[in-house]
């Protein structure tokens, strides 16, 4: 498959860019932040996403979705990255949808996927327990109780956790932290007894939550996929998450770089446009190269996820690692080249810096993925 967008994909990008650019520029996020909005995103806009078919992008057609793939999800995420629009697209339209469509029973799919496609159901994936992304270190216990389970433990960095109607929770039904086997995914109603949700306002003004589970009852119907075999399912979901977060980082990198290059052509110092200075030209040109390489890795990873899901791991590790590093560089260079203006809250650049930092951590930072690659290549 050619490493360029085809015509339908380009059209999807254009329509997403049009919608997001008009309805949710950075000022949209700023307004939500400044008003300490209790939801953290616009339900109205999410409704529009549903009408456009974006919330059900990955939902199979039989459940009311458009049945598109990871490349298309990445296209939407890239546009989201350009304006930092907060939305449940990642948590619900990507992670939960994928978990349900890959691991769900017929009953689970029809119960939840239709709601996701319509934009009425918000879902969140609860994986991490420590400060760094270490899915295999999952310690949360799910002990058998009757024909169901009891969940106890705590999760953090649960994206959209405080507004979710459904939680997808990784817990240990056997084995010890660090082991790949023994993990199981559960579908949990966040209103269940024993659940305490704390919204954690993040540096980037996007949604996340800490959730404590204290002897929470889950029936056998709540098991997603097979008991003890959830590790592979989870890794697949996470890989798609990593791929599309890399897309978001790419979008943010491109946007912030575009703003910086524009500034270099406008701002005068020492009687010259600062873009004439070779020191800045070379740094901008280097960053351009990094962004172009990142774009190629992200598209490669997303295409592989669509073509050969099981074999996409190394390409995803490359894309997420590269996008994290490039995103970090892009925002740092943007602030530096904008000078003091870049440090002001009034200017948008800081929003990109904060979001890039969060996306870097999300589902494994560049170091995590470099280590993954080294393990895969056995050194």
């Amino acid at each position, binding site marked *: 498959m*050619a490493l360029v967008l085809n015509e339908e994909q380009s059209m999807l990008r254009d329509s997403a860019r049009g919608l997001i650019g008009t309805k949710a520029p950075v000022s949209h996020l700023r307004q939500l932040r400044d008003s300490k909005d209790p939801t953290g995103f616009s339900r109205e806009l999410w409704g529009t996403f549903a009408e456009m078919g974006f919330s059900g992008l990955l939902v199979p057609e039989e459940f009311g979705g458009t049945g598109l793939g990871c490349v298309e999800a990445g296209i939407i995420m890239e546009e989201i990255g350009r304006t930092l629009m907060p939305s449940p697209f990642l948590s619900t339209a990507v992670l939960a949808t994928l978990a349900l469509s890959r691991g769900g029973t017929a009953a689970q799919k029809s119960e939840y996927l239709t709601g996701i496609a319509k934009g009425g159901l918000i879902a969140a994936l609860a994986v991490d327990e420590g400060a760094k992304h270490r899915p295999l270190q999952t310690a949360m216990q799910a002990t058998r109780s009757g024909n169901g389970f009891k969940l106890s433990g705590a999760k953090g960095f649960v994206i959209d956790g405080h507004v979710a109607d459904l939680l997808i929770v990784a817990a240990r039904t056997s084995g010890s932290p660090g082991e790949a086997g023994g993990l199981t995914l559960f579908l949990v109603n966040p209103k269940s007894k024993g659940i305490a949700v704390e919204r954690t306002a993040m540096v980037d003004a996007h949604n996340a939550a800490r959730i404590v589970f204290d002897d929470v009852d889950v029936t056998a119907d709540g098991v997603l996929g097979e008991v003890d075999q959830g590790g592979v399912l989870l890794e697949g979901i996470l890989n798609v998450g990593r791929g599309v977060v890399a897309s978001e980082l790419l979008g943010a990198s491109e946007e912030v770089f575009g703003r910086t290059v524009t500034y270099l052509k406008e701002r005068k110092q020492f009687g010259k*446009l600062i873009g004439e200075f070779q020191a800045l030209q070379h740094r901008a040109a280097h960053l351009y190269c990094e962004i172009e390489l990142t774009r*190629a890795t992200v*598209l*490669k990873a997303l295409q592989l996820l669509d073509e050969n899901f099981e074999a996409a791991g190394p390409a995803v590790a*490359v894309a997420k690692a590269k996008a994290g590093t490039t995103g970090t560089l892009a925002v740092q260079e943007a602030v530096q080249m904008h000078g003091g203006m870049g440090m002001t809250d009034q200017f948008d650049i800081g929003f990109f810096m904060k979001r890039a930092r969060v996306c870097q951590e999300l589902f494994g930072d560049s170091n995590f993925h*470099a280590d993954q690659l080294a393990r895969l290549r056995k*050194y």
Partner: protein
Amino acid sequence: MADLDQFRKDTRAWLEANCPPEMRKPMTKEEDTFWGGRNATFSSEPQRIWFERMRDKGWTVPHWPKEYGGGGLDGEEAKILRQEMAAISARLPLVSFGISMLGPALLKYGTDAQKREHLPKITAGSIRWCQGYSEPNAGSDLASLQTRAEVNGDDFIINGQKIWTSYANFADWIFCLVRTDSTAKKHDGISFILFDMTSPGVSTKPILLISGKSPFCETFFDNVRVPQSHVLGQVNRGWDVAKYLLQHERAMISGMGERGVGRPLGQVAADSIGTDDHGHLDDPVLRGQIATFEIDEAALACAAERAVDLAKAGQAHPAFSSAMKYYGTELNKRRYEILMSAGGSDALEWESERSKDGARARAWLRTKANSIEGGTSEVMLGIVAKRILDLPGA
């Protein structure tokens, strides 16, 4: 699609039947590369067999027209051939500046007679070319070159000096930039001319490098007589040809790192450094450096693949090869810093049996030229800044 699947099957079968096992190993020595030329010798019988079979198939230059000895393959087929060759680690049967640099310029700017004269000799490996661009006072500022060609009847008389002429001492012919109008603005008085290195008045002198090897020469022209019909493109418009050719040269140099790959760096390092109980390299900092390097290396490979696809889709930026040249060469330097670090004192051996005559150390030193030759990294970044990002000139 079915045709391409069939092509892949046939190609795989043909390579399996025709590529000698000895030619399916990474190149480690200079003699592993076959450059062709009037005085070419093969370093081994398998090298000869492999070259001749590929030449007869038209696959020394698979994507050139058949009438010039190429394979006549389209972009998709050529990609499949590359993939299938890579899958069995098949060596390139012929490496030459005729293929990677002059050929594309000949195809674009050559007259019919020039194409018929030169292209078949390139694909057949019978003439080896070198490039006469740089001069002692015209390196990065190439257009300030002073070698002059003065009209004398139907001929030019050429006088001057070139430097950094790679393998000039082995080359049969040279493609050369000369000044044909010294009164015009510096870019407008240059011509691109082809001539035989055995012409009276041509001499070369190798330049010994820090690697202890000498791919480069100084080349001197003392009243060299060349027919005017040997100009490629128009007289005084040689800069257009030179720029076009440089794009190909940069694309080639950016790919050098990729082609040089034998075993993955992590494995090479594990062999010399050893691993701990978890199978991790016994040097965590180096392990991190290698992993980070391999991410960038994979990213560059993706970008190279995308560049081809973009070109096919008509979306490529003409200056993108400068970005690739910059990134690829900086990466290759990093590769060899890591290899030296992984090799420790073994990699420092210069003259010993075990080190294959200091192969790694010499290669490491050689890579330092990657970001200078064919346009320095600084020149490449300047091109990206001005031509792609449209930043203002000073």
